[in-house]
């Protein structure tokens, strides 16, 4: 589907929280007053220099920003095409980009006088980041996590517990990220007076998609400056992995109006797009629907029942995607492609051996596309890929697949 091209891709959402057809506020009435309060509080915070200064200070001294922009020289030589840079957000405190968003939301929760924090998590990266900011600011934290994910992400489960969070295993559905989100929403409805829900990705009801995007845009803004310094120009291509899409929108958004920058979002192709319910590529293999507060591309059956999806990566194993990505797909501004479990595993190993960087399985999907893209580009062209998480948490999963008993 292609729709009329806007003058700018950076103006959304509109006042109803829509990016074209997508987004919105599809929530129960119990939550609606709070969602409106949150929107007002966020709009005020955004314009408040004190809020922005506190966030920037925490980013610098707590997270370790700016994260480096690293030229992956051996990988570039190996692939024989465009120059490949990694945005090293895996070097952040807690090991992924998730901390950028959690710091923003915890400051907002405090401004709103909310004392109890809840979060959902798939791979555990967002859960760890949420538990971390709760420890830092002294708030109780409950993290909902599907039982399947609890099993495959044990190190992160223990990390959250060490940080003082309560981890609630969710048994409904397939026990993955979608089910964790449902359970977090149920908690929120029941504890709406004192509870702030730190959503981990750029999805959910308005204003979450825009708010999370804004907190993650520090990634793309830094890349602009760092690449100007290193190369004196903008990149030719950006590549990032898409689960809900927060690391990707954070990298992409500052470049959306630079039409010469090609942008690629890489979805989890799982066992392949031809496998029914065997992938988590909601845009490449789904259709528009309404779930978790917004309209977006969803994996669903013909009766509107949402499918579970599959990916080797617990962080990409989500049947929806942030609504702004759905709109960017339909406008054609961003190209969304799948990478399979197998391709991600190969990229994981290649990066580890050639660069001495163990990527998380999520950015390994992005890297799988870089491996296809770089050789088709000229040697003086530049790709920036978001290395959004480190792979320590995934060594058990990868060991399993490679037949190594840890």
């Amino acid at each position, binding site marked *: 589907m292609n729709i009329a091209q806007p003058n700018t891709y950076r103006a959304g959402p509109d006042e109803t929280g829509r990016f074209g057809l997508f987004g919105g506020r599809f929530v129960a009435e119990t939550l609606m007053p709070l969602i409106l309060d949150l929107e007002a509080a966020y709009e005020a915070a955004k314009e408040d220099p004190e809020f922005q200064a506190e966030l920037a200070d925490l980013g610098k001294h707590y997270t370790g920003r700016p994260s480096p922009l690293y030229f992956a020289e051996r990988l570039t030589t190996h692939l024989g095409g465009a120059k490949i840079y990694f945005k090293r957000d895996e070097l952040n405190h807690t090991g992924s980009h998730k901390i950028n968003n959690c710091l923003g939301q915890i400051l907002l929760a405090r401004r709103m006088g909310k004392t109890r924090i809840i979060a959902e998590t798939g791979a555990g990266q967002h859960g760890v980041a949420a538990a971390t900011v709760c420890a830092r600011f002294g708030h109780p934290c409950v993290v909902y996590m599907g039982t399947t994910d609890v099993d495959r992400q044990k190190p992160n489960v223990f990390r959250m517990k060490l940080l003082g969070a309560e981890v609630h295993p969710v048994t409904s*559905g397939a026990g993955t990220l979608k089910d964790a989100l449902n359970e977090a929403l149920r908690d929120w409805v029941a504890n709406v007076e004192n509870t702030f829900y730190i959503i981990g990705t750029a999805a959910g009801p308005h204003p979450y998609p825009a708010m999370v995007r804004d907190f993650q845009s520090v990634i793309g803004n830094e890349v602009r400056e760092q690449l100007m310094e290193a190369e004196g120009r903008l990149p030719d291509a950006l590549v990032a992995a898409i689960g809900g899409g927060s690391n990707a929108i954070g990298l992409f958004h500052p470049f959306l109006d630079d039409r010469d920058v090609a942008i690629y979002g890489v979805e989890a192709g799982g066992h392949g797009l031809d496998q029914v319910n065997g992938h988590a590529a909601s845009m490449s293999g789904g259709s528009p629907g309404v779930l978790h507060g917004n309209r977006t591309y969803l994996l669903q059956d013909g009766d*509107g029942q949402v499918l579970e999806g599959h990916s080797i990566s617990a962080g990409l194993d989500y049947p929806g995607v942030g609504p702004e990505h759905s709109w960017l797909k339909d406008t054609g501004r961003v190209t969304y492609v799948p990478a399979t479990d197998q391709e991600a595993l190969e990229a994981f190993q290649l990066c580890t051996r050639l660069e001495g960087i163990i990527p998380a399985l999520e950015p390994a999907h992005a890297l799988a596309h870089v491996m296809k893209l770089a050789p088709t580009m000229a040697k003086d062209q530049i790709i920036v890929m978001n290395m959004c998480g480190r792979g320590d948490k995934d060594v058990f999963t990868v060991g399993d697949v490679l037949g190594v008993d840890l």
Partner: protein
Amino acid sequence: MFWALIFEAADVSETTRIDRRFAELKKAARPALMTFITAGDPDMETSLAIAKALPAAGADIIELGMPFSDPMADGPAIQAAGRRALKAGQTMVKTLEMVRAFRETDQDTPLVLMGYYNPIYIYGNDRFLADAKEAGIDGLIVVDLPPEEDEELCLPALKAGLNFIRLATPTTDDKRMPAVLRNTSGFVYYVSIAGITGTKAPDSMAVSEAVERIKRHTDLPVAVGFGVSKPEQAAAIGRNADGVVVGSALVRAVEATLDDENRATDRTVAAVTEVVEALAQGVRACRLMAAE
């Protein structure tokens, strides 16, 4: 605003079974007992048999749940009912077939479809409204469509002659109440707890105050649900509410009679009607109790 004017005019000439039922009950000076079951739980044939048995057991209005994979506002009992129905092959098409089959023998009991937006959206909004109306549905309750999203389904539903019943909650303050009530028809559904279905018991004093508060804003009947399971509770709430909704207690009665593979047994229908009979007694006695 344009639509709102037209609907006010239309409401006068076209009343639904819901409007007529509340008018009758007002004359009888008692609140409505509204019963929720999930369509297709544990299978379509059994849930149709339950639905057909509900009016004789004392149900004044029937809410039929449209099963959904991700019921964010429901507690464990109704979540499980939805899973059983989906596993048994329930679809929107079958739910509407069930409604037609119900209407073959009952032209009077109001039927309300309750659920989440996505299965409706995927069925196609216009097609859904036309088919639901034709099948004999009187109203809709769609949990994840707040007034901010009225243009999606609420306004087209009113135009199609269906009631669109809105949820008001403990977090809906006086400032927001008019927005929630605008474009609402049939009745207002007061969610008695901040929470999910069938988990906490509501405080009947607080509910009574909330019902009075809503009645200051509207002439529509006010029904109360989300935590009501026992006849005494139903009686207490029914003293000033115009309707009492019970769902999880019925769904639990279904669950308790199933065999090891979640199949219906010869106890299933009777177990539900027994619960409803007890609730109906509570609801019918409540205004007498209040008068004493």
